[in-house]
């Protein structure tokens, strides 16, 4: 077995209570993480598609990467896969991931991943202590919130557990670590499609509704703790690589140009600790530490002296802005607090967000759903005395009490309206007969697959196209969003648009000869061009291999540019193969691995096709084509022969040109432009003949 792997994937069947393993070696060609997860899914149930997410045949796949449990920077995320109850209009084979310590402990326990099949006849949780795996009765845990669940499960795993002391796991295998537990909350138990998985105090697998997938299987939690090793193929090279990487980190004692890079706008991109928690930025500050996921040199989270908003970032720390109608407060990345709209009550804001985590509601879909509920109330469609009776105190929407009532409604499916709203925004709109009207008008901005618009699909097009040609919100901030959008928005960019475009092109192997990869203009090299086809392909391949198969964090990778080096070059594309080869013993180039990303994307796409995907479905709602952009995105654009930063204000996407772009993209990737289906020769070149055969059986070969 190669370095980085333990050699076996845990397979748990909740229906017949059998526990077995799958040899990882069988799936090595898919790299790890998402790649192996997709391949396992196809092998186990691909021939039975389509079926529903709540069908016991659906799988919960939680895969490790070769980096899990190592100190590869920013690689601690756990990829969750399976048919996703929260995606729309079809519960696509989706993915979500979460940070923390889970993958590390799963690896130390000796497992490269978990595949859960079937459905338990009563609530259970899975207990993994090294190679000993048991299915435990969830009596007394089912019904608990996510925080209590994790702490109670940890007590059951190691009864003598004390913070700050060694515990004997078995046969003198000691650890000072607490079990890593991931679980669903009441929302998941009640099959709310907004339900997330939670690990630790604030690490969510937020997208896709995977909490409900746990709930549908009567699975409350999975706990992992281990005392084993991650084998490393070339330990010296790995240690050298880790120390080499220090140049790309924010130097906490002596940062580069702090007067510029510690200011607003840079806190999300500079790599400085703690900047992700945006709920503790106003004076007086609550004393806190930067709290990192396993292996991460950034530590974007916080743990506070008040114990609230622990380990939460971004939407998880500011969804509920109690006492404020403004935007989020200042992040921990330093800067001028006077320019930030204050959260009027930071303490209640933090505690309201914690309540969201405790109910097990995924912040990203909760945002869309709660906003839509408010909209429906304003339109007089729901409320007291209406067909959909709803007694939420809408006149107190910025109070803690409102949020508590909202979470309870959505988690418990309380009443006729609660049952409707727990279906999440897209299905709620559909059942009200309002989907076409509200989504196409932009009143409900679900731009892609039932997930809400994140950044402008009209300007920041690689995010929009990357989501549309995927199965959910792309959520890949470090591609161009934080480094470019937020750098330009700072008002004091450290690179000119031309310099940025040059450095990006150099990093984006194998397309490094194209200078226009990050041209967001509407000219011949802009958003509908061959260059954009390459950029979107690069994004999807990077997403599938390095983020998905490598377990990378989208808040740290890719790193095409950085403020932390003198020449502003980021760690991409040098770092990725340097680390991967040192850990696994492989000897491939960055380009080789990107082609593997292409393979994984093609396999995912084939699964979507088996579920019913066709190019005709890959269209944005009308408002993206008809309504001018509201601006807000400053991106590099090549206009009239010059590189500039521009917001693209007033732009709407052109339907015809978007369709032409899609045709070019399908052809570029080896898919049939007529329908978007993968072609046989493309699949066979990737050693995916059996996938081609299955597509052909369903008459869906491209």
């Amino acid at each position, binding site marked *: 077995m190669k370095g980085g792997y333990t050699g076996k994937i845990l397979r748990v069947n909740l229906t017949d209570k059998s526990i077995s393993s799958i040899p990882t070696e069988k799936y090595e060609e898919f790299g790890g993480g998402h790649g192996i997860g997709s391949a396992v899914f196809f092998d186990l149930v691909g021939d039975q598609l389509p079926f529903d997410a709540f069908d016991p045949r659906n799988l919960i796949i939680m895969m490790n990467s070769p980096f899990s449990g190592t*100190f590869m920077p920013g690689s601690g995320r756990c990829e969750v896969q399976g048919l996703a109850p929260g995606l729309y209009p079809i519960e696509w084979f989706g993915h979500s991931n979460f940070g923390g310590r889970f993958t590390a402990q799963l690896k130390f326990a000796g497992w490269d991943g978990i595949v859960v099949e079937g459905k338990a006849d009563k609530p259970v949780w899975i207990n993994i202590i090294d190679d000993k795996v048991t299915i435990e009765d969830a009596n007394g845990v089912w019904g608990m919130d996510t925080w209590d669940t994790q702490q109670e499960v940890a007590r059951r795993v190691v009864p003598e557990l004390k913070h700050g002391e060694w515990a004997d796991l078995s046969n003198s295998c000691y650890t000072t670590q607490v079990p890593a537990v991931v679980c669903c909350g009441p929302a998941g138990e009640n099959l709310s499609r907004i339900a997330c998985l939670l690990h630790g105090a604030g690490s969510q697998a937020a997208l896709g509704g995977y909490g409900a997938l746990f709930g549908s299987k009567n699975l409350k939690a999975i706990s992992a703790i281990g005392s084993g090793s991650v084998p490393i193929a070339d330990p010296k090279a790995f*240690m050298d690589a880790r120390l080499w990487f*220090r140049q790309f980190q924010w130097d906490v004692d002596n940062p580069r140009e702090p007067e510029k890079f510690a200011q607003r706008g840079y806190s999300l991109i500079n790599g400085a600790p703690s900047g992700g928690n945006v709920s503790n930025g106003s004076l007086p500050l609550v004393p806190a530490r930067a709290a990192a996921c396993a292996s991460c040199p950034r530590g974007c989270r916080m743990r506070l002296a008040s*114990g609230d908003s622990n*380990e939460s970032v971004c939407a998880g720390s500011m969804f509920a802005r109690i006492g404020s109608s403004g935007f989020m407060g200042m992040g921990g*990345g330093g800067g001028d607090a006077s320019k930030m709209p204050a959260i009027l009550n930071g303490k209640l804001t933090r505690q309201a967000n914690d309540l969201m985590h405790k109910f097990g509601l995924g912040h990203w879909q909760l945002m869309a759903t709660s906003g839509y509920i408010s909209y429906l109330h304003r339109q007089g469609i729901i409320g007291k005395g209406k067909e959909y009776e709803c007694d939420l105190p809408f006149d107190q929407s910025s109070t803690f009490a409102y949020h508590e009532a909202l979470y309870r409604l959505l988690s418990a499916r309380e009443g006729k309206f609660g049952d409707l709203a727990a279906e999440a925004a897209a299905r709620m709109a559909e059942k009200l007969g309002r989907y076409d009207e509200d989504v196409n008008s932009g009143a409900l901005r679900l731009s892609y697959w039932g997930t809400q618009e994140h950044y402008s699909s009209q300007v920041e097009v690689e995010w929009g196209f990357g989501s549309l040609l995927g199965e959910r919100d792309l959520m890949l901030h470090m591609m161009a969003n934080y480094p470019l959008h937020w750098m330009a928005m700072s008002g004091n960019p450290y690179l000119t648009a031309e310099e940025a475009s040059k450095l990006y092109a150099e990093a984006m192997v194998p397309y490094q000869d194209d200078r226009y990869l990050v041209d967001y203009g509407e000219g011949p090299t802009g958003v509908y061009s061959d260059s954009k086809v390459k950029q979107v392909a690069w994004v999807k391949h990077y997403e599938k291999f390095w983020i998905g198969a490598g377990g990378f964090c989208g808040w740290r990778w890719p790193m095409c540019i950085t403020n932390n080096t003198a020449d502003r070059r980021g760690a991409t594309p040098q770092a990725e193969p340097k680390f991967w080869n040192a850990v696994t013993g492989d000897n491939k180039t960055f380009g080789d691995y990107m082609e593997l990303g292409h393979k994984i994307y093609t396999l995912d796409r084939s699964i979507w096709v088996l579920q019913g995907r066709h190019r005709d479905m890959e269209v944005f709602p009308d408002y993206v084509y008809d309504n001018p952009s509201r601006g807000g995105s400053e991106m590099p654009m090549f206009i009239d022969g010059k590189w500039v930063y521009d917001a693209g204000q007033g732009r709407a996407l052109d339907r015809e040109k978007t369709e032409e772009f899609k045709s070019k993209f399908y052809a570029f990737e080896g898919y049939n432009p007529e329908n978007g289906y993968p072609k046989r020769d493309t699949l066979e070149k990737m050693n995916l003949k059996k996938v081609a055969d299955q597509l052909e059986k369903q008459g869906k070969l491209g």
Partner: protein
Amino acid sequence: MPGSKKPDKEAAAKKKFSRRDFIATGGAVVAVDALISTTTADAAPASAAPAPTRYPASKGYLVYDSKKCAGCTTCMLACSLVHYGEQNLSLSRIQIMQDSFGKFPDDVVMAPCRQCLTPPCVINCPVGAAFIDEENGNIRRIDAEKCIGCKTCLAMCPQQPHRTVWNHKINKSTKCDLCLDTPYWNEKGGVNGKQACVESCPMKAIKFVTTPPDQKETEGYDVNLRNDYWYNLGLVENSTHIPPAMASSQRKPGAFKPKPKAKE
């Protein structure tokens, strides 16, 4: 251990007691007491303050800042990597523990070896496997070849958690050697070299020093390694503390006092 001097009594102790003999004497605590009384017949009892010349001070120590630690465990993984060529938290000779639901600063415990001036692991090892390496800066070390796996050093380390570390793969005790013996690292370690945890910590929360820290409590080791750049991240020690970067617009007279620079 090549090039290391050990007192003769340690060699004698090894001859007298094999692991099998030792285990056969019964419970660990009883056995430990018995051995201390036996092996210290010609030396001061463990409870008495030993003469400084008997336990020469280490020429290197790890101090740390538990308020600066982010809990990423990079130091632990670096430690196990350079010593064993694999990454394993249980084998790491520095331990970092954290509680997701805890409150700062008690949510994190950092536990490196203290290289004690009076080292209980060395004093109480029944076979002389734990020793002071006089040729390498007086680092307190454990010779795995001599260790009989009796776990006495684990029991006798007064720190919580104990800083001697059980290696369950070889059933021996191990401990921090300040990276003197790191076959999987290209750098030279020890008191005149580098330490993997210090070098790899992204928060610079671990530091190598040569002056013996105060031995009484944790304060001598758990020191302030933060400066104003840290506080400017919004990570303050108390709620009256205003980071300098925020002070220009928020400061009232007398409200802000600069924190002292990091001390060793």
